[in-house]
């Protein structure tokens, strides 16, 4: 089996939330890289770039819903209807427990929906579990 470096793309506009998330994600090193983007339109530009789907690249997207310019649901929609990007796992990572956000996300094909715990210790452990699940346990689609 080929060994791919998995790139975690954190799309989050609040710099403090982002810092806490980066800290949590970095606390367990599973040999992945992390990139942070703080704006919806910038994120879409990054995701739609040819480099993103270059051979052998694997990404795990952590997506906030409330973003400047283009919101998370729109990014989700565009990714899931793009044939070359549809299989990239996208995890909504948000504060919103609103039913309509959850339903809408699943309708658009989100792979997981996680409400960030308020307690930091719980958050760190959630991020660690998330990495273990997606980077180790979960079987990735074969590389194109």
């Amino acid at each position, binding site marked *: 089996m080929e060994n791919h470096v998995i790139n975690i793309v954190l799309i989050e506009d*609040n710099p*403090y939330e982002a810092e806490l998330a980066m800290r949590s994600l970095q606390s367990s090193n599973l040999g992945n890289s992390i990139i942070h983007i703080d704006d919806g339109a910038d994120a879409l530009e990054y995701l739609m770039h040819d480099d993103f789907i270059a051979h052998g690249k694997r990404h795990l997207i952590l997506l906030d*819903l*409330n973003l400047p310019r283009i919101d998370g649901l729109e990014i989700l929609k565009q990714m899931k209807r793009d044939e070359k990007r549809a299989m990239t796992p996208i995890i909504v990572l948000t*504060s*919103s*427990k*609103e039913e309509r956000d959850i339903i809408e996300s699943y309708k658009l094909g989100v792979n997981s929906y996680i409400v960030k715990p*308020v307690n*930091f210790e719980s958050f760190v452990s959630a991020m660690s579990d998330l990495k273990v699940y997606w980077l180790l346990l979960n079987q990735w689609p074969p590389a194109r």
Partner: protein
Amino acid sequence: MTSQSGLTRRLSDADEIVPDSEYVSESELRHGSDQVVRETSRSLHDNDTDAIMQMFTEKEFETSDLLEICGPFLLSDTAYNVMYMSPGIINMIPDTSGAASLPVTSLFHPDDRPILTETLSAQTHDGSIMARLKLKDCSYAWSNITIRQGNKNIHRALYISNTDELYRSYITQKKSIATLEQKAADLTRQLEAVNKELEAFSYSVSHDMRAPIRIINGYAHILETDYCADMGEECRRLFDIILTNTGQMNQMIEAVLGLSRISQKELFITDTDMPALVKAVTDEQLSAVDNSDKINIETGNIISTRCDSVLIKCVWKHLISNALKFTAQEATPHITIGSERKGDKVVYYIKDNGIGFDMQYAEKLFGIFQRLHKRTAYPGQGAGLATVKRIVMKHGGNIWAEAGTGMGATFYFSLPVTDQ
């Protein structure tokens, strides 16, 4: 129109004609008709109808003029088929020109036709009856029908009165209904707008306000673990206060959200096996306390009702857990649960022998974040009873409590008995 029917009435009553503002306005009199009044008044004074007839025979007035100014009336044969309708009535009722034959009764409300038929066929002398005349807009107006026998008993004359007045009041009523409907529509729109705002508010509470709490909690945590490894006791206490309060703030947000969700949720009413529901909640709650073997829960007659079983389960959960919480210090906690049918409602109650509360604070009980006991002694956000109240009210029921300090408390809630 009023002046014309007034004049008609005066003529037919063969009464004295005097300008009467109720029937003929001064300007109308001056406008050509005062001549008529003056000339006819003498004849009428003498009660000489022949003189009037002569005026018509001499073509001083055309018969059509008279018919024009007469109120609504019609002529029929003795079987009450319409032979002639005055302009006054034609203007008022739906178009009947296409009808080959027109029974008088067909002009009235279907429900009034049998009694009308019966009365008319039994009519051997002059009389009157009330019935609903069908108007041009297909609505109905109550009218008084005065029936006159023809001299040769081959015709009937039916005078219809009061319709004007009724029609006017009907129109006024219709207008005021329309105004009310408009107001109701406006209010509904406002309410929808307020609801949308509330929804936006709860969304913002859910999403935006949780972030700063998480950030405070997160950074305080990092500060504590990464930079204050050898902090003193006081420093740790201060950090704990920050962390405890962020947790509490989060729980309060959850409580507000829970309440607003209940308000927005539509009730899903089903037949609910209330005894089973109460038993399930009781077992669940008992399994969560340490002293369950000492607790005596007595369930009496529990009447089943139609309700939203998920929400009513939540009501029982809060009430039973409260009863357990506030009897925890008793040597032998005792809780009684029962119900009673009162008119069109079922009143459920849960009585405990716990610490109770002072009735002077009873109204605070059901408010959100209101507490009647110290937080340290009895934990909780103070949102449970507010939630319970909202659920019960949403069902069209009510909730209240009776208690005394150290004398236990009884909580009552009622649910309406509804049919399928």
